């Protein structure tokens, strides 16, 4: 026993000279802090001046490190009222301005203070959160050089505090969400915003993720949507007479011309021109890319499903209910593309359920079905069977609706029904050919009761957007799927009075949320998984039908005999515009004088693409 005790004694480390010096400094710091209450502030003033040196030479740095370390051992003697000045000075310090030894000393002090008493937890967390982005005065090379050093210390410190104060992550959440740089200010650089969001995502994927995951992801989506809203349709329209309002194939045509001399990506040339000068667009584009990369890392770490539920919930609460979100929805599109079987299908089911649920407000249901139609049409990663099953349920819903109604045409009263019909037609414009080519789906599609939902008293063909109706009729006729003897004379090809009426003030009749992404960097992520209209194989032969009056009875027999080999190979392989520039010429079904066909003469002109209709093309929609 005695031997054991001696061993134990030997194992205890004796206090060395170094520790004695440290202890002396700590006791000195304690005395200095205690002396303030007795009115003796001389040492305290010296301490304050040492914490705010005018110049940061080697001596000042050494003094700063010593004082911070000494104070870290004396945090129990700090009073938030008596030593307010000292605390303010320390909380204002930015890790970005110091070298590693000062950073370490400052972090050590903050950790000690945060864990010394509950009253300092919030202040210390706020101080650490302030380090999430660099001070504006710091030049870019220094930012890049110090970024990893600062952020790794900050996150390990947050983890340390959470280990000792388990509820600190809960308190951290509102601090982080409220502390993000003000994106509206011109002096807030894109880099600051990106680094801040990078930290939010790092928190989500880090040790504190279990607590902060949901609010952090929701916060990122909210920020994306805020920036999205700032961009506004009018801003984009004013930038150019074309831009976002230009039709999809016009973009392709123009950028193909540009591409002869330029290897830049197609067809987003226009978008770059129109959005290039928009600081919000630049910020949003960078943040979207950051989010995409984070989703990829989650996919690699096999935890995409975990965060997808959160993303989906956030989407339902914010993006889906927002007025015509333009870009933020591509985050969920990209997440779906990374895991089509799970995330991709879950997203479609959520939209479908939102549309079917009669307890939801009409606008939400219309918005949901607009998302659903656009998503199923554009998502290259979704199998045609998933699309078909959703289509079947949509048709069933519409059939039941028609059976329950004995009303005449009434765009406002039956707007949900019309939005459902338009979704079905829009979807079929994109997918009809692929379904007809599938031997299993073709008989199913032929048996689909389209007749009963499109030919009835409610007359959806008269109410829905003319361009979609005409394109649908054209393809349906070619596929011998659906024919009508009625003749449609739309005054305006783009929209009609009835479509405006069913779309309401919000113009949800013209809302196609997954139209091509106009943010250049984000588009490069979306494009490989995206179906552009130019890639779609219609059921008709373009040349044969170009002179046809599409408004007349679709009784002819001109089943498309076009060679779709090029397009099929595009479907199967990674889409690369640069390689298929010439192929686009062959498959172009868009008239060159599209503006003419858009405004007048639509009936006698070749069909325009439904996808080319962009939301808010009409100023009156606002």
């Amino acid at each position, binding site marked *: 026993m005695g031997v054991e005790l001696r061993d134990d004694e030997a194992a*205890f480390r004796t206090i060395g000279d170094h520790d004695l010096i440290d202890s002396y400094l700590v006791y000195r710091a304690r005395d200095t802090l205690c002396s303030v209450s007795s009115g003796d502030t001389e040492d305290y003033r010296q301490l304050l001046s040492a914490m705010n040196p005018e110049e940061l030479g080697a001596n000042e740095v050494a003094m700063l490190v010593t004082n911070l370390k000494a104070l870290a*051992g004396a945090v129990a003697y700090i009073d938030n009222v008596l030593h307010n000045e000292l605390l303010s000075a320390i909380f204002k310090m930015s890790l970005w301005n110091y070298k590693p030894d000062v950073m370490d000393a400052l972090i050590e002090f903050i950790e000690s203070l945060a*864990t*010394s008493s509950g*009253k300092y937890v919030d202040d210390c967390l706020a101080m650490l959160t302030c380090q999430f982005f660099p001070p504006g005065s710091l030049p870019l090379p220094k930012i890049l050089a110090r970024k990893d050093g600062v952020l790794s210390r900050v996150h390990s410190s947050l983890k340390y505090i959470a280990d000792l104060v388990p509820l600190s992550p809960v308190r951290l959440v509102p601090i982080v969400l409220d502390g993000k740089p003000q994106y509206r200010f011109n002096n807030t650089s894109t880099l600051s915003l990106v680094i801040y969001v990078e930290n939010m995502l790092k928190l989500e994927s880090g040790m504190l993720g279990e607590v902060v995951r949901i609010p952090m992801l929701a916060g990122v989506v909210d920020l994306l949507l805020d920036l999205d809203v700032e961009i506004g349709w009018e801003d984009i329209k004013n930038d150019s007479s074309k831009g976002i309002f230009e039709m999809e194939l016009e973009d392709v045509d123009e950028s193909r011309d540009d591409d002869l001399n330029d290897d830049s990506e197609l067809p987003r040339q226009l978008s770059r021109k129109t959005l290039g000068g928009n600081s919000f667009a630049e910020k949003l584009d960078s943040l979207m890319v950051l989010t995409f990369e984070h989703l990829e890392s989650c996919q690699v770490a096999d935890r995409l499903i975990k965060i997808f539920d959160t993303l989906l919930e956030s989407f339902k609460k914010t993006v889906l209910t927002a007025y015509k979100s333009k870009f933020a929805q591509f985050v969920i599109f990209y997440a779906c593309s990374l895991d089509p079987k799970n995330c991709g299908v879950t997203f479609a089911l959520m939209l479908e359920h939102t549309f079917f649920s009669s307890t939801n407000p009409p606008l939400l249901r219309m918005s949901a079905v607009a998302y659903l139609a656009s998503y199923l049409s554009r998502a290259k990663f979704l199998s045609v069977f998933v699309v078909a099953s959703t289509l079947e349920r949509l048709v069933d819903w519409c059939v039941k609706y028609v059976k329950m109604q004995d009303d005449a045409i009434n765009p406002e009263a039956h707007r949900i029904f019309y939005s459902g019909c338009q979704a079905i037609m829009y979807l079929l414009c994109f997918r009809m050919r692929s379904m007809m080519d599938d031997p299993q789906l073709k008989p199913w599609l032929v048996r689909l009761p389209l007749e009963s939902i499109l030919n009835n008293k409610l007359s959806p063909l008269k109410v829905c957007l003319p361009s979609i109706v005409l394109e649908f009729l054209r393809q349906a006729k070619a596929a011998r799927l659906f024919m009508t003897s009625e003749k449609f004379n739309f005054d305006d090809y783009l929209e009609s009075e009835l479509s405006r009426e069913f779309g309401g003030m919000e113009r949800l009749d013209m809302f196609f949320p997954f139209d091509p992404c106009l943010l250049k960097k984000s588009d490069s992520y979306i494009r490989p998984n995206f179906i552009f209209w130019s890639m779609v194989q219609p059921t008709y032969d373009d040349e044969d039908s170009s002179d046809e009056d599409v408004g007349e009875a679709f009784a002819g027999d001109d089943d498309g005999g076009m060679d779709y080999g090029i397009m099929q190979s595009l479907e199967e392989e990674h889409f690369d515009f640069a390689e298929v520039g010439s192929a686009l010429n062959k498959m172009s079904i868009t008239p060159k004088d599209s503006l003419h066909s858009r405004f007048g003469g639509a009936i006698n002109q070749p069909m325009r693409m439904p996808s080319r209709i962009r939301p808010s093309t009409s100023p009156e929609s606002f």
Partner: protein
Amino acid sequence: MDGLNVSDVNLQVQLHPSRSNNVRNAVLRELSSLLLRFNEKFQGVVLAYEFKIDKVPDILPSMHPYLYVRLKAKLLLFSPKPDMLLEGKVVKVKQESIHVIILGFSSAIITDKDIREEFQYKTKHGKDLFVSRSHKQHVIKAGTMIRLLVKSMDEETLCISASLLPAHTGSILWLDKHVENVSLTDGSNKRRRGNEEESVMPEPSRTSAEAYSLVDHYIKKSKKHRESATQEPSRSEASSAMSDHSIKKSKKHRESAMQEPSRSEAYSAISDNSIKKSKKHKTREES
């Protein structure tokens, strides 16, 4: 351990009409907002709850037809007060402080001025520890379950300032083995007795049965639980079935609540009788 008690309360919750299709879930959602936060009305932190909807919800006659739901609930509360003895796990030992986590969520700190002279800070094999000068086996290090005295609590952050000055504070394992030798010099603390595995804790504070409204916070004395039980036979049956196991369930529940406070959304199954009958709560301590 002190600071844990069960409170019978009458609650009133107003629910948005859109929640009327699933009232129970909506009530759960409202109650979960109370969890792990200090509530001034209850004078404690709600750790767990169990409730019964008192009667069919009324529809409030106003512009907005909110549902008015009356509940009878049992709340497991954590209400540390100065001079109470709490138990927790040491997570960090430094020369200037000992950091403890109580019930898995509340942080407690003991600064060196609140550590009695008996303890000496040392490092052994690179690990920080406090060792008693008089009893070498009495060691406090990371992972040790200790008993500490509450000095104060920050109600916002639920951080506790604690002390190891009284002789009957320190490592629970050591104290329980040497309880007879500990001189109880501090008169403010309750007398303790126990054996190697079990110690009898001081009587917990019993919360008066008060009713609180989540909406307008009015307070009134709640009626006895038995009255409601006689009015509703189904509840009476449930109550009697629960009372058979009241003491065991009560003990089991508190232990589980102590171990896993994060799961406190699970409803407690404590019998009303068990609380009223139990004068002293026996808690199995770490052996």
